[in-house]
């Protein structure tokens, strides 16, 4: 894999793979033959913490639209509903990740793809565009990240604590 981009979340780096595209909801999308595989970006995984629970509410063969709720995930730091990043049709849910959701923490860019979509359509960002998106939305995201050392500084309007420049 080519060298990833780095997005600093406080003092912790999130590695953004450059060999794929991203949806604005922090999922990566990569073609695999006739379908597109979808997984979590490193940013999403860092927010979740150690993933221990994953459940899907959609079924293979179902037509989906961008933004449709598809499932639920829980990690040590957060819970979330999961939404489809693009229009298309659900092809497959990764059985290995369903059996062991913690794979998401160790293999988020390859083995721990979440699901695949057939006929996937919709706007995507390049890795550079995704990085810009993360940087632009970071100050407010920080205000909501409990336990992050730089959270309170940014939220109160002060300068980012982790910025060495």
């Amino acid at each position: 894999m080519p060298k990833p981009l780095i997005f600093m979340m406080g003092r912790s780096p999130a590695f953004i793979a450059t060999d794929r595209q991203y949806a604005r909801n922090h999922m990566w999308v990569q073609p695999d033959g006739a379908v597109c595989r979808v997984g979590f970006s490193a940013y999403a995984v860092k927010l979740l913490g150690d993933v221990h629970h994953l459940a899907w509410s959609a079924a293979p063969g179902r037509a989906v639209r961008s933004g449709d709720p598809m499932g639920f995930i829980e990690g040590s730091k957060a819970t979330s509903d999961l939404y489809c990043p693009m229009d298309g049709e659900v092809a497959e849910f990764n059985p290995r990740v369903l059996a062991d959701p913690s794979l998401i923490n160790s293999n988020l860019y390859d083995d721990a793809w979440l699901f695949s979509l057939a006929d996937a359509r919709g706007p995507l960002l390049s890795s550079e565009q995704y990085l810009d998106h993360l940087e632009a939305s970071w100050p407010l995201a920080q205000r909501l990240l409990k336990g992050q050392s730089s959270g309170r500084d940014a939220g109160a309007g002060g300068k980012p604590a982790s910025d060495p420049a």
Partner: protein
Amino acid sequence: MANSKLAVVLSKDRPGQSEHEILERKILGGLEGRHDLEVTVLPHLYDLANDGPGMEFLRSVGGDLVVLTWLYPRSAYWVLDANGVKGRLGPTISLAEEEIDVPGNPGERAIWCLDLRNQKRPDPFLKEINRIASLAVEPATVAAGQINGRPNWIDEPTAPRWYPVIDFSRCGNCLECLNFCLFGVFGTDADERPIVEQPDACRSGCPACSRICPEGAIMFPQHGDPAIAGDPRISPKDLKLDLSQLFRDSDPLQIAEAERRRALEERERQSRQTAEKPSELPRKGSLDDLVDRIDDMDL
């Protein structure tokens, strides 16, 4: 007139929970005829008006107080505190293992909060009340209490309320809540601490300030998410976030601000409805009351 009875208050759940009503009645049945207890029945603690007969009664209790509610002990304690009912939180069976540091000072009278959701049967609660009664408790000086061994029912009319409750043992005084809320719910007291100044200005269902607070010091006791309702097992340091807005939209600006915007739109929609139907007035905030009273004075 002082007496040595222990004040026991049962705060009912909101109407519509028949299983809960059954438990309440069984507990009251088990307390009947107890001349060492002053038993009072109130509506849901969270729905009581600050200046209503329910809270007035609670403020009149001078000694130790046992309160059975459908809330976490921590939530009940801080609702009471916000209404001028102060003391230290007594260690009961309803406290979670993690609750080692309980709020209050050793010299104060104890408020023993029991969470009625924890047990399906009345016996554990009755046993716990006996245990508390057997401890050396300060005599309860109550304005109204049991008559002939039967509980005193204070039937204050209530409607479901929605407002934030501050846990001052966690509050760090950053005033982000005051800064963030658009509805004027928060103010400050003489010591510049945040207080819930206009609870009824809070938009029903909006928990945005709870998410903004860096210390997890704001709770909405009736919210579905235990972390927001005041579950003590969730430490403020590792409060679990709900990332749903982030993982749906792209823009983290939506988080918390989306909740706030929705609440604002709802308020505007309601004002428009009021303009169209002047005979159906929405719930008034205290500011509206003040304006009305000034108008009535006809100055």
